[in-house]
């Protein structure tokens, strides 16, 4: 988990409309992702989330469930800067459910040089809260 939801799990409750997840880039894991989504949504569109795409020309997929209330952003790599293996993660307990979440430091590194103003604001907030600076 990364993005706005990760920021929430690290302590800053703020609204977000997407669930951003970075997945290990292998076919078995992407099959597990489809199974996890099917366990929540009875949606044949989930079959369109394929390893062929995520490991090939489409490293970023957005899935909007039938409810249309939010979107799931699924990434296997992020440009040349970040790959799954680069991201430090920790397990955070969410009401008894372990959630693998990017660390505050890694989230800061991911957000600090991005174009979007809200990402830079998140990076500044993380830096202040966790006393982070450029490593």
């Amino acid at each position, binding site marked *: 988990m990364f993005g706005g939801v990760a920021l929430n799990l690290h*302590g*800053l*409750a703020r609204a977000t409309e997407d669930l951003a997840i970075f997945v290990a880039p292998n076919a078995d894991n992407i099959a597990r992702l489809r199974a996890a989504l099917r366990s929540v949504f009875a949606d044949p569109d989930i079959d369109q*989330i394929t390893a062929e795409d995520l490991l090939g020309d489409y490293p*970023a997929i*957005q899935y*909007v469930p039938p409810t249309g209330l939010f979107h799931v952003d699924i*990434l296997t790599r992020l440009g040349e800067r970040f790959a799954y293996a680069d991201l430090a993660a920790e397990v955070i307990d969410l*009401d008894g459910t372990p959630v693998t979440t990017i660390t505050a430091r890694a989230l800061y590194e991911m957000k600090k040089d991005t174009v979007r103003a809200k990402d830079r604001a998140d990076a500044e907030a993380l830096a202040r809260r966790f006393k982070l600076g450029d490593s």
Partner: protein
Amino acid sequence: MPVRKFHDISEMEGNTWREPGPELHAAIRRVWEFAAKTVELRFPPGVYRHRSIEELDAQTERWAQANFDVFQARKQR
């Protein structure tokens, strides 16, 4: 919740962070429920493939604009 007073607005910001745990989870629920009530967002269901994070961000921005337009139109009715 008791009244909290600050000498400067910058002091208020630190007040928005919580230690991970039940109090944080309750705050997340309250914020997300409040956001859902105040700004009702809708996204077209389906799977959208992108060649880059920039393409993904552009799609997200198009949805944000569409939701904003719907919100403004609803206000003007």
